[in-house]
């Protein structure tokens, strides 16, 4: 590989497309033969945290009656304390901008400590019911801890736990796999409205944090959650029998698509843009179907056979055009 890379750089230089300084700099850098294990080792750390916390979770679940409760709780508490001790000791304190630890291991210690804290509080609530019947409180406390850790230590993974916790407090499950089998929204109308409110809240929070420039790199995560929550809530209500309901949710859908169209350009985020298009397309199709439902087509049904392929092709072309336009604008 290196052989061809050097050849290519040489050719670029020969054609006067890069300057001599640049060429020598590139050659000097390539001569170091850097083989970075950065990604791999970080992935290992991350996997180890996932394995360890999953193991502890199952361990507690299976042995809930055999080991003493106090023993488990105190052991957990010790591990949590050790994790957070190191994190606090080495952190640079709270910063409004993006920050990171000196040592990459600490980032994962924060994650481990946080997940274990969640397990600890869950276990405590199950066994001793310190929050009594206020189950919401038992969700809210780990959520607050997560948000604190996320903002203090600047950790995106912990932030997602916080957001799922917040959604759980409202009564939603927004873990990705649950979002895909969105059963919740069918359960009650109110849940859809609270999902919408949560999404709006998240968006407002990103606008506010932009204004005071507080951890603006977190915005993408908030917006991603907001997009999925609002869109899925709206789409599952577009099929509602009640005319008023689905018209309201069509309006919600349209305005959210418009907002996220703007937001994805502002954040230069491809994933946000693509999901916005997909949700928008699904929503638009359901909307068209609802409109045509009331029209009598028996006379011209043959027309559909001609229109359908054309409709399909033009949607793909539109999709390609949109993506190309987006790509062009964000690279500028």
């Amino acid at each position: 590989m290196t052989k061809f890379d050097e050849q290519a750089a040489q050719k670029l230089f020969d054609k006067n497309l890069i300057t001599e300084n640049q060429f020598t700099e590139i050659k000097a850098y390539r001569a170091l033969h850097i083989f970075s294990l950065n990604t791999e080792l970080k992935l290992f750390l991350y996997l180890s945290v996932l394995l360890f916390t999953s193991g502890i979770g199952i361990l507690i679940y299976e042995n809930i009656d055999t080991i003493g409760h106090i023993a488990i709780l105190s052991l957990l508490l010790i591990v949590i304390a050790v994790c957070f001790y190191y994190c606090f000791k080495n952190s640079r304190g709270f910063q409004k901008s993006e920050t990171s630890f000196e040592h990459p291991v600490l980032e994962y210690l924060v994650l481990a400590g946080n997940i274990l804290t969640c397990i600890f509080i869950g276990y405590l609530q199950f066994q001793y019911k310190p929050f009594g019947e206020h189950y919401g409180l038992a969700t809210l406390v780990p959520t607050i801890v997560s948000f604190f850790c996320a903002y203090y230590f600047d950790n995106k993974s912990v932030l997602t736990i916080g957001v799922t916790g917040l959604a759980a407090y409202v009564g939603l499950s927004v873990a990705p796999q649950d979002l895909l089998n969105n059963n919740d929204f069918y359960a009650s109308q109110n849940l859809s409205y609270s999902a919408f409110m949560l999404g709006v809240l998240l968006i407002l929070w990103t606008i506010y944090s932009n204004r005071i420039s507080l951890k603006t790199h977190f915005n993408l995560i908030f917006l991603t959650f907001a997009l999925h929550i609002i869109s899925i809530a709206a789409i599952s209500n577009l099929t509602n029998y009640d005319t008023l309901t689905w018209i309201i949710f069509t309006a919600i859908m349209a305005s959210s698509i418009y907002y996220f169209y703007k937001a994805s350009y502002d954040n230069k985020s491809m994933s946000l843009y693509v999901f916005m298009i997909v949700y928008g397309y699904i929503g638009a199709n359901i909307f068209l179907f609802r409109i045509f439902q009331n029209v009598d087509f028996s006379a011209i049904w043959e027309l559909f056979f001609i229109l359908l392929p054309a409709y399909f092709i033009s949607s793909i072309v539109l999709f390609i055009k949109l993506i190309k336009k987006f790509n062009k604008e964000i690279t500028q």
Partner: protein
Amino acid sequence: MIVYDKKMLDNEVLTDEAGVLYEGGFVSKEQKKFIEKELYVLKSQNNILVRIGFFLLGCLLFLSICGAISIVGLQAEDAYLQICCYLFAVVGFIGAELLATKNYHNHGLDDAFILGALLNLGIAIAITTQGYEAVIAFFIALGALFMFLRYLHLPSMLVFCLAATAFLFFGMFQFGGIGKAILPFTAMFFAGIFYFLTKRRINDLKEKYYYNGLLLANSFCLVLFYLSCNYLVVRELSSELLGTEVKPGTDIPFAFFFYVFTFVVPVVYLVQALKTKDRIMLWISFLAIGFSIYTIRFYYSVLPIEVALTLGGIVLFAIAYFSIKKLKEKESGLTFKPDRINHTDNFLNAEALVVASTFGMKPEVKTVSPMEFGGGGFSGGGSSESF
């Protein structure tokens, strides 16, 4: 053999290099744009989504051409059904050639025609030979190799590798029981030979055109070599093909060899990858180690799952921690510093998503279980084993 203008292919290499250098911060954005403007290149799509979109469009185009032919052809009834797939394959070949002369490369449209041609070729041979697998695999391999050599089409190379392997397997089946019994060794043998052959070809290459395809074939050989004598694969395949049932207390023949193979090969890969600084081999070795662990756990429950997970987590943490400690200060060679040129942090971006799906909190229900927070524990454990 290559249909494209060599000059354009060279330019493509140069613009790619400019992109890499821009990512590494060696050249400015304006310079990169200038280079791209200066050098005329083939029409290709770097964005995977756009490419998929064009691929779908290409499929529709291909289908409508085939449909138009069928409207005429169906008058001939049975005779037409015998040859229709050959006609479709020819359409695919002609389409691919036309698109290539119009300088489409890795664009999506050409993918549709090339892959469509290969698919129809396979179906056509299957109809003619009444499903004779070895012959089908042979012709698909031949077609795919042609596509790769002429149009530098990488997915075709993958098709070629798979078809060639299938040809080897079905060819061995022709020898009956003996062929099936020595299948693992034959596959291992061929994978080894082709590994060194492709390696040699890569080192001898003067131009970059075939580099990526050969690299793909080379990596494929590594994977095939490991899988060919992996204990789990051998045991399951032998019970599938030979119908041998392993009774308690007994084991498959040469079991010891397969056990040793399952554990030695990934380690050899790992050491070799670190020695030669080969990132693809490194990742294959990680996956192979994961699969070896899965192999053992598949037959023997060495430790209860929760203990295995916890201990595995601690061991992995220790390995990562000490490696980082050791590599942190190094400036060249093997290091922990992110590479300016090839940095792959896409995995790390997905981290937050995985955390959300494994440890995300669920809304409270009245029957509170202690699993509510670590709720994803089981699924997390399941997926992590494949690493």
